[in-house]
C-alpha cells in the first residue's frame, strides 16, 4: 500500500478534496495547478480557475503550464487581462481557495518565503525569491492551503522573516479584526495535514500520511507539536484517482 503512489500524488489528491465544486480557486504553478486540474477532472467540474498571470478559466488548460503566465493558461481561456484582474478578484474577497508555498512555517502559522537568517545583518541572510503572491493570497482568500516540505529547519518556533502572517497577532496587527486577514487555514506538508486551533490559533497535526509514525512527524518539527484528538490517516489515493491524476502529467513533469 505504500508503493503504488508517490508522495506528490498523495499531497495533490488530498489538497484537491478541499476544493468544492463551483468555487473560485487561485492556483500557482507546480503542484497547485495539477491539483486544480485534477479537481476539475473529478468532483469539481464547475470550479473557476484564476492564476497570477491573469488567466480566468472554466476549463483545465490544454496541457501543463510551467509558469504562472504560461501560454497554456491562456489558450482557450475565458479571460486574460493580466495580474490586475485576478489579483483584484482576490482583493475583493471573491477567491474561495488559494495555494501558497513557503520555506519555513512556525507554530502560529506565519510563513516565510523571503529568506533565512537575520535580515538586519545582511551577511547572515540567505534570500529566497521573496513574497511573490503568497502574502496577497493569504491576505485575501477565504481558505488558504499551504503546501510545504517538512523538516525541523522548516517547521520552526518562529520564522526568521514573516512574509505571510499567520492567523494570530503579528507585528502588532491582530488578524480577524475588521478586514485584517487570517493567513493559512490548512497546511499539507510532505508528512501530514495541519489545521489551526480557533482559540489558540496554533497549528496542530490533523492527519498523518500513511506509514508515517506520529513520532517521526514530531521529530521533523522543532516546536512542541500539538496533535488532534481526532487524528486520522490521510486516505490513500484510489486507483481511479491515480489514473486521472497521471493523465494530467503524463511525463511526470511535476509528479515524479
Amino acid at each position, binding site marked *: 500500500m505504500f508503493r503504488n503512489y508517490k508522495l506528490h500524488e498523495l499531497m495533490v489528491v488530498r489538497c484537491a478534496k478541499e476544493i468544492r*465544486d463551483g468555487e*473560485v480557486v487561485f492556483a500557482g504553478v507546480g503542484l497547485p495547478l495539477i491539483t486544480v486540474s485534477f479537481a476539475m477532472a473529478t468532483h469539481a*467540474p*464547475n470550479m*473557476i480557475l484564476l492564476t497570477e498571470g491573469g*488567466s*480566468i478559466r*472554466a*476549463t483545465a488548460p*490544454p*496541457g*501543463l503550464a*510551467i509558469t504562472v503566465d*504560461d*501560454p*497554456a493558461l*491562456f*489558450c*482557450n*481561456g*475565458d*479571460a*486574460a*487581462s493580466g495580474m*490586475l*484582474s485576478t489579483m*483584484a*478578484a*482576490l*482583493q*475583493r*474577497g*471573491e477567491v474561495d481557495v488559494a495555494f501558497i508555498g513557503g520555506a519555513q512555517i512556525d507554530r502560529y502559522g506565519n510563513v516565510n518565503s523571503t529568506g533565512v537568517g537575520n535580515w538586519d545583518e545582511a551577511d547572515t541572510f540567505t534570500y529566497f525569491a521573496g513574497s511573490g503572491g503568497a502574502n496577497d493570497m493569504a491576505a*485575501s482568500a477565504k481558505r488558504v492551503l499551504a503546501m510545504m516540505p517538512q523538516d525541523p529547519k522548516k517547521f520552526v518556533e518562529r520564522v526568521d522573516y514573516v512574509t505571510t502572517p499567520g492567523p494570530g497577532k503579528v507585528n502588532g496587527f491582530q488578524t480577524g479584526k475588521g478586514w485584517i486577514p487570517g493567513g493559512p487555514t490548512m497546511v499539507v506538508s510532505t508528512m501530514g495535514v495541519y489545521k489551526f486551533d480557533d482559540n489558540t490559533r496554533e497549528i496542530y497535526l490533523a492527519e498523518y500520511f500513511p506509514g508515517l509514525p506520529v513520532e517521526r512527524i514530531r521529530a521533523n518539527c522543532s516546536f512542541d507539536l500539538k496533535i488532534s484528538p481526532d487524528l486520522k490517516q490521510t486516505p490513500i489515493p484510489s486507483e481511479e484517482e491515480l489514473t486521472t491524476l497521471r493523465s494530467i502529467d*503524463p*511525463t511526470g*513533469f511535476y509528479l515524479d
Partner: protein
Amino acid sequence: MAAVKNKTMALKEAVATFVNDGDTVYYGGFQIMVPMAITHELIRQKKRGLKILNASTDAGGLDLLVGAGCVAEMHLAWAMNWYVKAPYAIRRAFQAGRVKRHDLSNFGATSALLAGYLGIPFIPVRGNIGSDMIKHNPRDLKVMEDPFSGEPIPVVRAWRADVAVIHAQRADWLGNVVAWGTRGVTDELGCMAAKRGVIVTAEEIVDPEAVRSDPDRTVVPYFKTLAVVHCPWGAHPSACRGYYGVDIRFCQYQGKYERSEHLLPIFLEQWVYGCEDHEAYIRKYIEKFGKEGLERLRPVLGFKPKMDVDYGYHDPAVWKGVPQYTDENIKA
C-alpha cells in the same frame, strides 16, 4: 459531473430576479453603449430607490430612469441627453428633492470604480481639489495628507454596486462578455466591482469556444455574470460599436418628452409601459418612423483586425529525456 450553467434568460426574468428595490446599481456605457433595454425594463418593473453609480452617461437613459421615479441617489460625473443639451428629468427631480446627487469629476468617478474593482477602500486622484464637489460630496471625496510626501491629495471612496447592468457587443451563454474598440471604457471596472454580479444584454450570443479563441477580449469573465440576455438594438437610441450609430433624431424626439413633466409620462406610456419588451419597442419604432430609421444607423464596416495572432502553447513533455546542458566549467 454537474452540467455547466447556461445563463441566458429573458430580460424580464433577469431584472425581476437580480435587481431589488434599493439596490446600488452600476449603470453601464458612456456616451454610447447605454443599457437602454435594461433601463426600460427597470421602469416597467417599477423598481424603486435605486442608487446609481457611473462615470458619465448620455442619450437620456438615466434621465428616463430618474423621470420614471426609479432612482433615489446618483453618484456620477456627468448625465445628459446631449442631443437636447440637458438632463431635464434629473434637473426636475433634484429641484423637487426626489433625487440626491453626489458629484465627482469623470476620472474621480472612474477612480472610485477602479478602487471598487481592486477591492481597496479608497484611491487618490489628481482632480477635484479646490472644487465645490469636495464641499457638496463629502460621502465620496476627502482631501488627506499623502503619507509619503505630506502634500494634500484628494481621495475618493471605492464604489461597489450590488449589481451592474450593461449592454455589450457579444456574450457567450456561460456569461463571458466581449468588448472591442476601447474595452468598455469603464464597464470592466463597474462590473467587476459589483458584489452580486452583472446583467448583460448583448447584440449577439456566441458559444464559449468563440470567446475562448481570443480571451484578451473578455471584459467581464463568466463568474461575475448573473444573466445574459440576447437583445439586438439593446442600446438604442445610443450606439453599439460595430452594430449601429447613435439615433440622433430619436434622442431629440425622446428629449422633447424629457423636457416636460407633463409629456414624459406619455413617452413612458407609449414607449416603455406600452411595449411588452425591447422587441416590441423596436417594432413600434419601425411602425412609427419606418425601417429606414434603423437602416440609417448601420455603420460603415471593414475596420477589421488584420494581425495574425496565435496564442501558442508549449508542451513541457518535450523535455522528457533531454539531458542537462553542460560544459567543462560546470561538470562538477
